[in-house]
């Protein structure tokens, strides 16, 4: 362990020119990510005036206001939705990724492109498409009615929200899992079969543990952005249960309270960072365990 962290064979020492070439990327990150975040962090401690102005100054009142059952409830609901979506996306993503990774090599890139194609359409257009698909005049309800079921429109419903969230984030789940699966030696599957492992055991003991890093990335990449979603719950969920993203929009616009909106944004940001850090720790532990497993074998 120590040896590998101190001396890194094969690593090229960065030259001055190398650092210079990093500058544009650094500038972009500082200007477009770090600076806005600092502005939001600063605003979250500012005093607001009733006309919607930002008076500056320093107060903790914004954070105190957030300790209100109303905000806690919305935060809890959003975290629940994000977690549900992360799990659903990862499960479905696992199945899709496994299917793709086990096709013949020439077919795999085609299937991956097919997964991305819907993303070339605007996000709002795709969300509206779900309204048509699940609405009362749509194919799904028509089919149910043709079968004699007295079906009502599925929009708005929790199911519609869950489905369209899955649809919106599925590719994000498929890619990291596929990447992890590609490096699994296919002969492991044959070996498992030889040793009498069934379908379930092959996945539970071979494929899932070996693609753990991809599964963890998938959970993170779907969980974090779901916390920021605000259009889907309004269009497909009826907007009766706002997500934290809806609340932030309301605070910034209708409530004319930038500082309070900034404070809520900071809380969400911290929750996101905490979950990324948590997942990072889990991943590292998992990797260590895998390595020791490999040694045992």
């Amino acid at each position, binding site marked *: 362990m120590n040896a590998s962290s101190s001396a890194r064979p094969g690593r090229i020492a960065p030259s001055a020119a190398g650092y210079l070439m990093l500058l544009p990327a650094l500038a972009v990150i500082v200007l477009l990510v770090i600076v806005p975040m600092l502005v939001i962090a600063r605003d979250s401690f500012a005093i607001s005036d009733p006309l919607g102005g930002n008076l500056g100054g320093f107060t903790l009142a914004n954070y105190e206001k957030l300790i*209100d059952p109303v905000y806690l409830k919305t935060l809890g609901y959003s975290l629940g939705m994000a977690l549900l979506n992360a799990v659903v996306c990862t499960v479905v993503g696992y199945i899709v990724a496994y299917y793709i990774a086990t096709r013949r090599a020439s077919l795999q890139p085609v299937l991956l492109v097919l997964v991305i194609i819907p993303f070339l359409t605007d996000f709002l257009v795709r969300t509206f498409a779900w309204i048509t698909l699940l609405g009362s005049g749509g194919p799904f309800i028509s089919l149910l009615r043709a079968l004699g079921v007295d079906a009502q429109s599925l929009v708005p419903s929790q199911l519609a929200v869950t489905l369209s969230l899955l649809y919106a984030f599925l590719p994000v789940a498929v890619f990291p899992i596929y990447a*992890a699966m590609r490096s699994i030696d296919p002969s492991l599957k044959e070996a498992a079969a030889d040793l009498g492992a069934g379908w379930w055991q092959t996945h539970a003991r071979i494929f899932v543990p070996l693609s753990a890093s991809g599964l963890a*990335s998938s959970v993170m990449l779907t969980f974090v*952005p779901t916390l920021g979603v605000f259009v889907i719950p309004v269009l497909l969920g009826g907007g*009766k249960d706002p997500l934290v993203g809806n609340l932030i929009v309301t605070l910034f616009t209708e409530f004319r309270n930038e500082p309070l909106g900034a404070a809520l944004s900071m809380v969400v940001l911290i929750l996101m960072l905490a979950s990324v850090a948590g997942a990072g720790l889990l991943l590292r532990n998992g990797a260590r365990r895998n390595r020791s497993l490999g040694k045992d074998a």
Partner: protein
Amino acid sequence: MNKKVLALGALTLASATVLAGCSAGGDASSTGAAGDGTLSIYAWAGEIPDSAIEGFEKETGITVTVDTFDSNETMISKLAAGNSGYDVVEPSQYAVQLMVDRDLVASIDQSKLEGFDNLAEKFVDPSFDPGNEHSIPWAWGTTGILYNEACTGAPVTGWKDMWNPAYTGKVYMLDNMLSAYIAGLQVNGLSATTTDEGDIEKATDSLLEQKAILGGYNSTNYADLVGTGDACIAEAYSGTTSATAVENNPDVKYIIPEEGGTLWTDSFSIVKGTANEDAAYQWLNYTLRPEVAALVTDDASLASTNEAALPLVADQSQVENPAIYAPAESLKNSEFIVDPGDALAFFQDGWTRVRAS
């Protein structure tokens, strides 16, 4: 394709999804408009027809840039940030009050105006801007009810129908605090412009009670929902989308509730400190002409504030469409929704409770 590339691809997709959600908000690129021969206008999306802009450019030789916004708050925060580069803005009535208070718009020199007499009476010296000192109304509309008679089975007459449990799951309210409170207040027989804490509390209770039968809160596609019957009855703004829904489906009706009516109007104001003041006045005078004002109905399906313009509207069926021009008798008791001032806090507390319940 190695792992890093794939992960990067996934990350890009994830952020693209989130950003795409954001782009549903305002879309306006800033323009530098100092110097002669240009005019930069910041207006509501869909409220200034291209035909009006082209006519103005041809006549004056001034190059016009129009950026659009979809909420007053977006527009105000952009102007408040300073150096917006805009010469003329188009705030709604309560936004005029806010912008005057925040010193963002200039006083209009009435002596430089031509054609001000063309405005309909209710837009002259309005409650939100005494003496039209800071704003010249351009388009107007109402907040009312859009309903599908095939679904309700009977004519709808007022806000009380939006509390009728027979329509459970098919009632939609606008996803906007002050608009929702219009219904909440007027259904209790209270004024929509009240600032009394007790009144607002009563409205909050009504809105909380109503939530049980709501299909949802929606300011985006409620007209489609009413058109297809997925919604029986929805709180609605008059204007393009409601008018189209009424035109396309004979069962869809737009009414002003019997408990009272409310008006909104979007006006042109001159940005404080503009470098193109002359061009801004030319624009105001141009839009006060009846033949220009008629374009807002012909090409944008909105009601014009210009009385003299009404006979000049090419398609008179638009003037008769209640979802564009609400009938005069239904507006007898109507008032403008004005800025609630300090009472905003009561509305906010109530609305937060309603939304999170």
